[in-house]
Each structure stands twice: as structure tokens, then as C-alpha cells.
């Protein structure tokens, strides 16, 4: 039995028994190689669910929709290991109760989706451990190192060119499961920290602040990168931050539902080589 058939069947069972009120999964997209999120509320609708190698989006972002989980009912969601880590972070940051989330775990190997055993966030500890052991993306690391080795002025020019393209559509924020603030810092106008028009300085500030807010929280699902209409390599800057917290604090985001956020905790012997 293929994974798609299996997940459809299990989703239908969960819906008909009332164990979950909603299943968030993938459906046909606008082109054959694209998938879009579908929200299934009845057993019959589970026929719309698709699962294959093209299902790359991190659907955990829909769980933080306001009011979705506030009735205490459960929601099922299709998640890759990065999405499972997102659930762990959201639970650790008290944004959701992991008991309310039923996970249809899968991973993509050689373009094929294969199921991961488990239904609760805590069932996937080994999956997350394996992801941690596999390390951060080598391709991104290569590019980050290339940038690390050029001069600061050249790096500035690189990012200036990238950020000058930004149109401040905030798609990166909207797609991100970690961007759940009711009032984002760019929307604060007293005081106005960040220039809101999309000139390069304002774009610089916005992207720096977003990267800072994602430091030690980003799971590298790549949603921001894919959603960016002007192709700014946002994944790269987030990768660099993930590398920093890993090297400095041995911290890997989303290991468990009770892992303390990296910037909300400290050790007395944290490195401080740069402090005079």
C-alpha cells in the first residue's frame, strides 16, 4: 500500500471517528510539479490528499492561525522532519499544545515520500536526532563560507544588491511558522524601528531583524526562500544564524517540546571572546 493511500485511509478514519476536526495536507497544485495545502474536514474529502516527492512546504505554519486550536480539538497535519521540529519549537514557546497535533510524518528520499512511524511530536525524537546528526546543509555552508571569506565591504555590497530587490511583501513572514507575533516589529510605529518603505536601508533593517528573530528557531524548511518573489537567498542568512548558535551554544532548534529557546536561556560559561 502506497503512502498516499495509507495516509488518506488513516485521515478518513481519524475524521470519521471525530479524533481530529481537520486534516491539513497537500493537494494538487496549479502545475503538475506543485502541491498546495488542502484543508480536509470530512472523510470523503480525503480523496483530495496527495503525497509525493513534490510535497515540500512546511504545513505547521497553518497551526498557528488564530483560534484554530483554541477549542481544544485536535488537528492532523502532514509534516516532514523540519515541520516536526517546528511543532517542537512552537510547543516550547507555548504557542500550541503538542497533544492537540496529530502528525502524519513523512520524509522525502530520492524524490519519493516515505512514512515515518509515530503520531505525536514526542514519537519523532529519533527522526530529529538523525536530522541533527546529518548536520546543516553543506551547500548553504559552502556559500556562507564563501561570503565569510570576502571582505566586509564586499559582503555589504552583496547583501545590498540582494536586499535592494526586496519589495517588502512580507511573504517570508507570512509563510514562516515562527513568525506568529500578533504585532510584528515592522508594524510598530511608535517608535518606528524599521523603515517601512521598500528602500534598501529599510530592506536591510527588515531582513536583519527577521534573521535575528529566527536565530536558533529556524528549522531551514526553506519556506521564506521559496516564497520570496524576488529570490533573495533568505535561507542562506538563516543558515548562518543556525550555524552560529550551533557552534557557540551547541544548540539545534526544535529538538524537543521542552527545549528552552536559545536566547531565553544562558550558561555562565558561554563564550565571550569578543567582549573587551
Amino acid at each position, binding site marked *: 500500500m502506497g503512502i498516499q493511500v495509507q495516509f488518506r485511509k488513516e485521515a478518513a478514519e481519524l475524521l470519521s471517528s471525530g479524533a481530529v476536526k481537520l486534516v491539513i495536507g497537500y493537494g494538487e497544485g496549479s502545475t503538475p510539479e506543485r502541491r498546495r495545502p488542502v484543508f480536509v474536514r470530512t472523510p470523503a474529502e480525503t480523496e483530495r490528499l496527495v503525497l509525493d516527492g513534490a510535497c515540500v512546504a512546511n504545513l505547521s505554519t497553518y497551526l498557528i492561525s488564530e483560534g484554530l486550536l483554541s477549542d481544544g480539538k485536535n488537528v492532523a497535519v502532514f509534516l516532514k522532519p523540519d515541520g516536526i521540529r517546528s511543532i517542537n519549537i512552537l510547543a516550547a514557546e507555548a504557542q500550541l499544545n503538542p497533544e492537540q497535533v496529530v502528525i502524519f510524518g513523512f520524509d522525502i528520499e530520492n524524490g519519493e515520500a516515505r512514512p515515518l512511524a509515530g503520531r505525536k511530536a514526542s514519537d519523532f525524537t529519533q527522526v530529529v536526532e538523525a536530522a541533527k546528526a546529518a548536520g546543516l546543509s553543506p551547500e548553504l555552508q559552502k556559500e556562507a563560507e564563501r561570503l565569510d571569506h570576502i571582505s566586509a565591504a564586499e559582503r*555589504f555590497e552583496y547583501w545590498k544588491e540582494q536586499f535592494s530587490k526586496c519589495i517588502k511583501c512580507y511573504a517570508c513572514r507570512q509563510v514562516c511558522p515562527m513568525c506568529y507575533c500578533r504585532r510584528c516589529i515592522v508594524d510598530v510605529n511608535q517608535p518606528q524601528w524599521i523603515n517601512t518603505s521598500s528602500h*534598501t536601508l529599510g530592506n536591510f533593517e527588515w531582513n536583519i531583524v527577521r534573521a535575528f528573530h529566527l536565530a536558533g528557531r529556524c528549522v531551514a524548511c526553506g519556506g521564506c526562500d521559496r516564497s520570496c518573489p524576488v529570490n533573495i537567498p533568505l535561507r542562506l542568512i538563516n543558515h548562518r544564524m543556525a550555524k552560529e548558535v550551533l557552534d557557540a551554544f551547541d544548540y539545534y532548534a526544535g529538538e524537543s517540546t521542552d527545549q528552552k529557546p536559545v536566547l531565553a536561556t544562558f550558561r555562565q560559561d558561554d563564550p565571550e571572546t569578543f567582549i573587551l
Partner: protein
Amino acid sequence: MSEPFEPKIVAFVCTYCTYAGADLAGTSRMKYASNVRIVRLPCTGRISPMFILKALQKGADGVLVSGCHPGDCHFAQGNYHARRRWTVFRALLAFTGIPEQRIRFSWISAAEGAKFAELINSLTEDIRKLGPFEQYHELQTVIETQSTY
């Protein structure tokens, strides 16, 4: 002969240690470069990275962030939290091409007036050598001079 470049430096300091240290430098009649503008905050834990960005946006050539030594924080752990934040923020600024030499961090206690004066002097000299932070300020100039914004 043209006048030497006088950098603008903003220092975000905590009120219990570094501000008191700066005060000691003053009451001890120690001279230090007048390029620094001190902003006093309750604790280094209160110093948001936004402050640093705002200072650069408004024309600072260098920024100093300073507070109590580890273990000496008036609020027990404010500086430990700040230290983690700085580690990450500093790496981020460096990665986006904002030179590390322009954003400096230090621990200065209330008894270290001399260290404060020395640090300000050496920091001012370093930034003077680097010159104005044209690359960043140019972005602000574009906004002010182009009517499309």
C-alpha cells in the same frame, strides 16, 4: 589643511556599572574623546539590537555596548542574556557586511573609570582610522535626496 574626521560613536551602557564607571572617569577628571554619546539604560538586558540598528540608521560610525561583568549584574542575569544575544547579533551583522570593528562590546564595572576612558579613546581612534561608515549612511542619503521615497 582639512580637519581630522571626528567619528560619531553611540555607547549603550547599563546604569549600574558602565554608566557609573563613566561617571567615575568624569569625577576623577580623566579626559576621554568627546566623540561618544552615552545612552543610559537600566541593564544590558534592556539593550535591544534595534538600538544598534537605529544608531547606524541615524548616522553613527561606531557603536559601543557595555555593561556589568558577568556575575555582577544588578538584576543577577541580565548581562548573561545580553551576552548570548550579542554573540548572535554580532555574527549576523558581520555576515551582512557591517564591520565588526564598528560594533564593540565590553564589560566595565563602576570601579573601572580608567578602563572606560581608555576604551573610549582607543575606540575613537579605531573608528577614525576606519573612516565614516559611508556604505551604510549612503543608503539613508538616498532616501533623503530622492523624492520617490
